[in-house]
């Protein structure tokens, strides 16, 4: 057997080995990065959920203490943080279909929270002006948005768990 054909065959086998190993590593890499991007979305949603919860507790406390000015400011913060949460979630790029669905639900949840916060703030201002009927209507509209947002956020959380 001559030496040259043997070397060519060996080089071909080595190339095949290299290609297969590279493909296997790429497969492993893409699978783990897909999970990593979904996990990152989860971390962002969980973090902003905590912020929103803290803001909501402030709104609650101010309302219970009958402090409409403070409640208005807390509600404005709640609305602003919801908007920031939405922006942060929009930047995420989930790779699985479950992750993409969770992202859509979370975006709409925080969108509803933004509107709820605005209604609550407007309700507080109406209360300060002595317009009780307007205050009540705005508070009810805010509650509708909040309920819808809650449902969507819990659904998003379930998909990300």
């Amino acid at each position, binding site marked *: 057997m001559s030496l040259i054909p043997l070397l060519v065959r060996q080089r071909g086998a080595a190339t095949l080995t290299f290609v297969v190993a590279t493909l296997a590593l790429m497969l492993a890499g893409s699978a783990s990065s897909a999970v990593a991007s979904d996990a990152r979305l989860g971390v962002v949603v969980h973090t902003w959920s905590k912020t929103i*919860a803290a803001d909501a507790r402030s709104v609650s406390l101010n309302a219970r203490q009958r402090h409409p000015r403070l409640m208005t400011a807390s509600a404005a913060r709640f609305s602003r943080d919801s908007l920031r949460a939405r922006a942060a979630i929009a930047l995420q790029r989930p790779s699985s279909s479950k992750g993409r669905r969770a992202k859509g639900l979370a975006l709409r949840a925080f969108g509803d929270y933004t509107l709820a916060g605005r209604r609550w703030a407007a309700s507080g*201002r109406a209360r300060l002006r002595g317009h009780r009927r307007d205050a009540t209507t705005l*508070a009810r509209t805010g509650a509708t948005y909040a309920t819808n947002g*809650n449902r969507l956020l819990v659904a998003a959380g379930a998909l990300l768990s």
Partner: protein
Amino acid sequence: MVRREIVTWSAAAVLIGGLGVGSAFAANPSGGVTPTVTTTTTQGTDDEEQAASDVAGAADDVQSEAENPTADDEQGDQSSADDQSEAQDDQGEDEDDQGEDQQGAATSGSNGTHGESGDDGGQGDD
């Protein structure tokens, strides 16, 4: 001849090994960090439920405050300059989305009766 066999068997071994590693990652994607991810997501679900609970509580309290005929606690209700400006900023935003409010309230009402798939036509993704 022997060399060719060695090379062929080596290639086969690497191929099987590579596919094994790939399928292991695909089947158990989180690999070595499974406990951390599991803990985070379990706590995370709790975070969303806790947030929903706190928001629902706030909605109830704001509604009760709005309907409450008794006078407000004027003395304790002194907001800082920052809070005042926040509230004023938000007032502008609030006036801007009056139309959105009316449309959105209708959407939310319908969302309450439909399933999740029906909600997708609402605000949409990015």
